[in-house]
């Protein structure tokens, strides 16, 4: 970029006789070529500012209280598959939170989404502008801006929203939607239910079941690193621990056992204690990330 450098301009242009003879296009060309984009800060100053901002960020609290600390790389896999559709761009976007990672993201319409560990959101930029539709694999919390219908598609069902906050959990055949504010419509297997704040819908063996009177602060506690479980299969609990701490947990014979309780994702040992102790289980950690759950020695 030749900023600040004067391009060569024939000085005779600026005699009136010559200027008057020029066509409009020629005049415009000369003037436009002479334009420079003004800068308030220079590049060096802008870089300094950026460095300051980055420093502030790294001293701020790490993203959620995951144990990934400062070394955690907030990796948003942003695949810009560049496809030209007529005269505007269509960019399929993906937000991928790896294991042990939570990501916060603002969607093009201003809606906010927090993506839980081992989860993925995808949408197309142009499609999203026309119709707010995105795909979710895993779990995410949405604060939706009022406006056109907002649709979350999952493997098992569809969630329609009108300006609200909600949590969607969709892994394998499981689907669980909690409504914290506003109104949500959940559809799966040709059934649909409408959720009001404090209500939750679960897909249980192919049937949508509604639970009411849930404390909204327990609904998506994972955002602040708090996990609440109410009579949830123990295997699902260990799966959640795997995702939050990026570990592998081997279990055996835990089918048909359920857990009710809470834990936070700050300390792996603490969490394992919290779950194992009441369930009469022991755990062994090998190589830092492989965990074996065994029945408590008598």
């Amino acid at each position, binding site marked *: 970029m030749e900023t600040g450098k*004067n391009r060569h301009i024939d000085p005779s242009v600026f005699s009136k006789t010559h*200027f008057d003879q020029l066509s409009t296009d020629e005049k415009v060309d000369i*003037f*436009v*070529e002479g334009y420079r984009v003004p800068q308030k800060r220079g590049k060096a100053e802008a870089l300094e500012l950026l460095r300051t901002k*980055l420093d502030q960020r790294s001293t701020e609290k790490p993203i959620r209280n995951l144990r990934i600390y400062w070394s955690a*790389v907030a990796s948003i896999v942003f695949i*810009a598959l560049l496809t030209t559709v007529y005269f505007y761009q269509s960019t399929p976007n993906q937000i991928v939170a790896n294991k042990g990672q939570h990501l916060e993201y603002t969607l*093009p319409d201003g809606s906010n989404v927090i993506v839980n560990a081992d989860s993925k959101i995808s949408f197309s930029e142009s499609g999203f502008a026309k119709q707010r539709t995105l795909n979710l694999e895993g779990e995410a919390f949405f604060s939706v801006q009022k406006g056109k219908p907002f649709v979350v598609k999952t493997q098992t069902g569809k969630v329609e929203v009108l300006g609200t906050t909600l949590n969607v959990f969709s892994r394998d055949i499981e689907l669980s939607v909690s409504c914290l504010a506003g109104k949500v419509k959940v559809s799966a297997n040709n059934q649909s239910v409408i959720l009001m704040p404090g209500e939750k819908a679960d897909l249980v063996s192919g049937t949508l079941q509604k639970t009411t009177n849930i404390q909204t602060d327990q609904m998506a506690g994972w955002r602040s690193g708090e996990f609440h479980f109410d009579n949830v299969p123990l295997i699902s609990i260990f799966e959640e621990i795997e995702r939050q701490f990026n570990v592998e947990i081997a279990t055996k014979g835990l089918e048909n056992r359920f857990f009710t309780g809470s834990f936070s994702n700050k300390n792996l040992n603490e969490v394992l204690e919290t779950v194992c102790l009441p369930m009469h289980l022991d755990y062994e950690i090998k190589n830092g990330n492989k965990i074996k759950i065994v029945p408590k020695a008598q």
Partner: protein
Amino acid sequence: MRILSNKNQAGTGLDQVGFEQLFDAYYDELQHFIFFKSGDTEIAEDIIQDAFLKLWEMRSSVRVETARALLYTIASNLFANRYKRMKLKFKLQQTIIEDRTFETPEFEMEIKEFDQKLQRVLSGLNENNRTVFLMSRMEQMTYNEIASTLNISVKAVEKRMKKALEHVRKEIEQKF
């Protein structure tokens, strides 16, 4: 100035050095790009700050070869989200009149009025047409370069150029 390929950085992920290299290589053109859309230096500079912050957040998955396209995408999205229906007034810096003596004060006046009128007309241009027009005429980018930067077809660039030129010509030739 455009392609920054550094053999050490093949593959995915950016370190601080690579990140600042990208900043150095693309800051100006990105700032111009958002300026063409917004006509406002401060908005342009803020957007580019945020665009680079976003790039830093996703640095682990950024590839140097696609970083420029990614930055353009991030910047134009940030701009579109924040300043959708903004009324803008261009204030470009005209270098050809600076430090120049004119034959008569009347002629100087005429030139300055032409300049002001042109800036007004540019403000009134459709955002996309203006961006293409100024990339071509101010940045001296070829249609191919513009097309790949904006991720549109060369045909679309030609079309936007044509519209911009027609609009500017029509408006300028209209008497005050």
